[in-house]
Each structure stands twice: as C-alpha cells, then as structure tokens.
C-alpha cells in the first residue's frame, strides 16, 4: 500500500516558479493496479522521480506500508527505497552485467550470499519467463526481454510497491501486451501494489483497477476504472470510451445525444427500443464499445431528427437504465484526445 499526501514539487527557473507537482494525493492499496495517465508536461516524470526520492519533493509525504519515505535520510532512505521497485521505460539495465547479475544487483547491495542470490534470481527469471537467459548480456536481448529483466530486477528486493514508469512506451504493440500481461499477473503477489505511469490509454484499459488523470501537476480526476468510465462528461470517460474524432457532425440533421450504457444494458438494443417508443428514426453517428475490468461499456452518439423532442429521447433512454445527455451539454474534453 502506498499513500501519497499533498505532494508539491516547485522548481525555480530564474524568477519564474514552476509547480511541476501541485498537491498530488493518492492511495494505491495492496493487490491492485493503479494507473496515472497524463500527456507530456503533466508532471508524470516529476511524480516518478519524487516517489522514488530521486528528486526530493518540496513538501508532502509518501508512505509505504506506514514507512515514511520523505522524512528518511541517507541510510534509512536507501533502506526505504528498497520498498519500491522501479521499472523504467528503457529498462536501464547494466550492460556490463549478465542478466542474472542484473537481477541479483539489489540483493548484492544488501550483502545477500551468492547461493541465496542465485536461488532468488532463478525464481524471478522463471517468473518473468526468462529462465534460460541468465548468462546472456542485456545487449543480446530484445526490448521486450530487457523489460522483463527490468521487472525481475525491480522485484528482487521484495518491494511493497512496483512503480512502472512508461513501461511499454518503447515497445511494439505485441510486446506491449505481453509486458502488460506480466505486470497484471503480479497483482496480489505478496500484497504488491502496482502503480503504472503512462500516456497510453491502452495500458489503463488493459490492466488498471483504478486510474487518476494527472494534468498540470494535479490529479483532476480519479476513481475505479468502472466508475470513471460511467461519467459521461468526465475527461477519463471521454478518453477511455471516446467517440472517434472523425465523425463529421456538420452533415447531421437534428440534435446530437450521447448515450452511455454499462453492463447488461450495454448489450440491449436501447436505441432501437427508444426509436420505436418516440416513433422517430434515430441515427447512430458514432460510438465505441469497450470491455473494461469485466464489464461492457457502450458509448453511442445518436442524431435525433428535427421535429422530435430530444428530451423525450433522453427520458426514454434514462428509463432503460442508460445515461443520456445532449452532446452540446457535455464539457469540451480538451486535452484528452491525445490520451486515447
């Protein structure tokens, strides 16, 4: 379990004050995967560096299973850092060491004996699916394999938190899914809390139980994945379950309405039912359907022809358990398109 409270990081560029982190608070319970998503410049890198104390936050606290990281100094800090396993975008393995010695590095630091180290390294390499690559050097492995080694190394000190910084951003789509599957499988390993920092919505959709949107150094939206998706006007919902931007709304005659249905409602013909109820043809102009955390979500944008009262359409949809709003009432989801 990791708890972050009121984290600030303020830089000074000449006379200008830059608030890279502007009061970030979050909690990731053991056994769950939490995603932090934001586009470049949102403060993701700063957050990672502060969480690992590579940079000292200006104020605020970071606690891991009750151990305060922010007040620790030198020896205590080095010890506390072992509670967080950090996975980098570019695995950052040591080229001069074999794979086995890379994974064993955190154990070497604390003086674990050779036999015990080898046993642990074997177990971890088996866990990440690289059981027979121990003697190879990082340069001999593919990007995906290097990232597996990076994950094994991060787990070597039996951390309470696995912090993944853009773990798949340097990988191709297929390797990305393999790595995500691996990270997802670590959920619940000895009460591990996983925190994934990314700019890829795909990562959040695939493995996260909960998600926070970081923007301008603040967490502007946060919650369980299945909850944030339901908020029709939420930025995370727009990004996770957005209408493709290429829908040309200018050619549509009538008024646009957004419909969001979840679970079993998402599989029912709600629009067809409403269409016959109000006695008007409803045209679906765009939509997306996603299966997230075991639940189906459907977000459709429909055109209500002129002459039909859109409120009647909305009422009919609401009565069927779907959420519906006039598209023009939804907040402009600026800045989330590049997240999707």
């Amino acid at each position: 379990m990791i708890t972050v409270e009121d984290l600030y990081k303020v830089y000074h560029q000449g006379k200008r004050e830059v608030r890279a982190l502007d009061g970030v608070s979050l909690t990731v319970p053991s056994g769950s995967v939490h995603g932090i998503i934001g586009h470049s410049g949102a403060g993701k890198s700063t957050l990672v560096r502060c969480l690992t104390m590579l940079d000292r936050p200006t104020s605020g606290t970071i606690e891991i299973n009750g151990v305060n990281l922010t007040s620790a100094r030198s020896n205590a800090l080095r010890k506390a850092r072992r509670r967080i396993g950090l996975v980098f975008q570019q695995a950052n393995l040591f080229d001069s060491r074999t794979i086995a010695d890379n994974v064993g590095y955190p154990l070497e630091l604390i003086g674990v004996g050779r036999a015990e180290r080898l046993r642990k390294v074997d177990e971890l390499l088996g866990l990440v699916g690289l059981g027979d690559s121990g003697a190879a050097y990082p340069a001999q492995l593919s990007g995906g394999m290097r990232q597996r080694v990076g994950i094994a190394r991060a787990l070597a000190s039996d951390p309470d938190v696995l912090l993944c910084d853009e773990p798949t951003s340097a990988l191709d789509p297929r390797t990305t899914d393999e790595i995500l599957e691996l990270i997802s499988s670590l959920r619940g390993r000895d009460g591990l809390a996983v925190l994934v920092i990314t700019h890829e919505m795909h990562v959040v959709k695939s493995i996260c139980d909960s998600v926070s949107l970081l923007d301008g150094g603040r967490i502007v939206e946060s919650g369980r994945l299945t909850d944030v998706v339901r908020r029709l006007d939420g930025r995370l919902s727009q990004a996770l379950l957005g209408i493709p931007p290429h829908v040309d709304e200018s050619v549509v005659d009538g008024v646009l309405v957004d419909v969001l249905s979840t679970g079993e409602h998402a599989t029912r013909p709600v629009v067809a039912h409403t269409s016959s109820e109000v006695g008007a043809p409803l045209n679906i102009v765009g939509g997306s359907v996603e299966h997230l955390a075991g639940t189906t979500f459907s977000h459709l944008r429909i055109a209500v022809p002129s002459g039909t009262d859109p409120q009647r359409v909305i009422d009919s949809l609401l009565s069927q358990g779907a959420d519906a709003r006039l598209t023009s009432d939804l907040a402009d989801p600026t800045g989330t398109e590049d997240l999707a």
Partner: protein
Amino acid sequence: MIDYLRDLFTNPLLINGLPPAIIETLQMVGISSLATVVLGLPLGVVLFVVQPGGMAENRILHTILSPIFVNITRSFPYAILMVALIPLTRFLVGTAIGPIAASVSLTIAAVPFFARLVETALRDIHGGKIDAAHAMGSSRMQTITKVLVPEAMPTLVAGITTTVVTIVGYSAMAGLVGGGGLGRLAYNYGYQRWEVDVMVVTVILLVILVQLIQFVGDRISRAVDHR
C-alpha cells in the same frame, strides 16, 4: 643488404646500448602507467561526482581540482614540467637521474590527462543507469564501484591505452634529461653523433612498442565490452 644488417647487428653501440635502454624505457613506461591509473582513476571519478549537478556536487572541490589542478598541470609543456619537478623528484626518489626519477614527472604529467579521460568516460554513461542504481538503494560508493566504473570499462581501457602511448612519447623526452631509455640512446648517439643506424633502430623499436600497446589495449577493450 646482408652486409648492412651484419654491420647493424655487430654495431657495438647497439649491442651494448640497446638492451639497457629498452629496459629503462619499459621501467619508465611501466611505473608511470601503473601510478597514473592508480592515481588518475580516483581523481577522474572525483571530478565526475563533484561536478555541478553531479552525484556529490561540491563546488569548492570541483574548482580546486578541475580548473586549478587539472587544467594548469595540463597547460605545462612536458619539457618544462619535467625540469620544474626536479626538486620534488629529488625529494621523493633521492635523485633526479634514472628511469625511476623520470617516472615522477611522467606520472604527474599523465595523471590529469588520464583523469579527464575517466571523467569523459563516466559522463557517457546513460543517466538512467545511475538513477536505477540510486532507486535500488545503492550507496554512492556502491554506485561508483558496481555501476559507474564497470559500465565505463571499455572506454576506460581505451583511455588507459591512449595514456600509455602518450607516456611512451613523453618518456623519450624524459630520456634527454637523465631518464635514460631509448629516447636518450636515439638523441645521444643518433642525433648528436650522427649514428643514423642507432636512430633508425630506436625509432623502429618505439613504433613497435606503440603498435603493441595499441593492439593489446584494443583487444582488452573489446573483451570487456558487452554493450
């Protein structure tokens, strides 16, 4: 041609002068190379860690070491440094004559040069690796000995090779003021007494020595390179 070679191999100057000169050169180069690596590697590491924004930023130490000690020592022409260091050499070795005495000035000239090469080699290491070392809870010393130096090893070996070759060049100069070795042989007999054969043979030997050092250095550098 055969007569020429026979003359060459029976030339008393070469038969009597060459073996001790070779030994003296190897002594000078060997002692000062070893001392340079032993002193220059830590100095280079310190230059790297105390630099502004470094792992153990220290402005005062950086100023004393980088612009003052390293740059000033490196600006001295070796011929002048060599003479200027005679009192120190006398104090350390007891004499200013001979290959061991010459090693003092050779080492002092080579240490700042090698330290700069070490510093540059360490700067080439991707910052992410140093972050990784810190994030895993390495102490500064562990980061230096377990990550920085091993990761820079191929470049460090190349730097040692360059330094040893430079020392070979300087050692010929050191020979002139009492260091002995091939440099003095070439100068005294070859240049001053117009014994062209002696000059040619010593120069060829120096060329072979340099080629050999470069060859071995490249081999080792490649062997330790896993990038």
